[in-house]
């Protein structure tokens, strides 16, 4: 017996899963841009301190953007 789940939802479901795969690039992209900007702004600092601050900024930006990824998942959730 055909159900709503397997009748026509398959294509849309696949689209959402593919979309999610590409959406996962966003946290990485956002955090990398933030880290590179921080690197440029901290030219006066010693290399080790500069790198430490850059790594910290990358982690914070990544965490925030990953929360954003989850918000997007909740918006895409049908129930």
């Amino acid at each position, binding site marked *: 017996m055909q159900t709503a789940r397997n009748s026509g*939802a398959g294509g849309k479901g*696949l689209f*959402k899963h593919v979309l999610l*795969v590409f959406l*996962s690039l966003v*946290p990485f992209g956002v955090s990398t841009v933030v880290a590179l900007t921080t690197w440029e702004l901290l030219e006066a600092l010693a*290399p080790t301190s500069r*790198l430490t601050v850059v790594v910290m900024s990358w982690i914070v930006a990544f965490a925030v953007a990953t929360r954003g990824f989850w918000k997007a998942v909740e918006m*895409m959730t*049908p129930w």
Partner: protein
Amino acid sequence: MTAINPLVGIAASALTAFTSYFVAKYLSGKFATLGISGVDVHKPERPVTAEMGGLAVLFGLAVGSATFLVAAFPQDGTFLAFIAGASTAGLVGLVGVVDDLFDVKQRYKPFMIVAATIPLMLFLWSRGSVYIPVIGYVEVGLLYPLVAVPLAVTTSANFTNMLAGFNGLEAGMAVISLGTLALLSAATGYSTVAMLGVILTVAYFGFLVLNWYPARIFPGDTGTLTAGAAVAVIGLLSKLEFVAVVLSIPAAMDFTLKAFRKRPFGGRKLHGDAAVEPDGTLKPAEYPTLVHAFMKVSPIKERGLVLSILAMQALFALVATIVTLGFL
């Protein structure tokens, strides 16, 4: 750059794959009868499946490494890089064996993994800079061997250990990550390290044949910790730290979703695992993880879920490859 005889490379890889596959096949029957097994909770019939299959990968690594070192002992000293890398990956694998058999407390595991990185720390003692594409080389002095090396191996091993629990997921991710690192190591002139990457890739591939849906054996912590450690090891040895970081992004996202909550990492204890419907569709538990994200947006079964996460891993492998080759 050490030129490697292709026949030696092919022989070492073939022996590794055969060893890993046949040991995994033997263990899948033996461990199930010995009670070294777990319930496959993502199938409606909940079959009992052998655990600790990562041991087959370690056997494959040992046979492949021995074959390579005996048949093509590199004359320029790069064999030390190979031995340091293989030892560290192997020792982290042994930490996984201890964890699988005796269920080591979470707080002790990082220290055991740090101890396992000593061969790599010693080999990389004189390296004091890290390479980042766009930025270039950054001097960090002794922080590299003393902090960056153990931190990278421990973090990568634990990330891989957390994004796990579905047939073919851990071994599939290991094949993609280690294969990418092997390819880029060869492209950047680290052929001996690339050979270690190839051996580890085919070791996981041989195991994956039996771990793929429906799995006859699980990797256990032995397989997951080794995979994560191996990614960090190859990345550090061939100065591809950035690539190792990019390849860890899916696992890092999963970690972040679990960590930044009111009760960090408490979701599974509070809400349990994903439920399985009679037709095999997975229903997410009510807490954020990467696998639950795929289950939430649309109905998905275990096989489709694993293919989706592997596609994500392949996408990040592609990004790492383009960035690395673009900055060569």
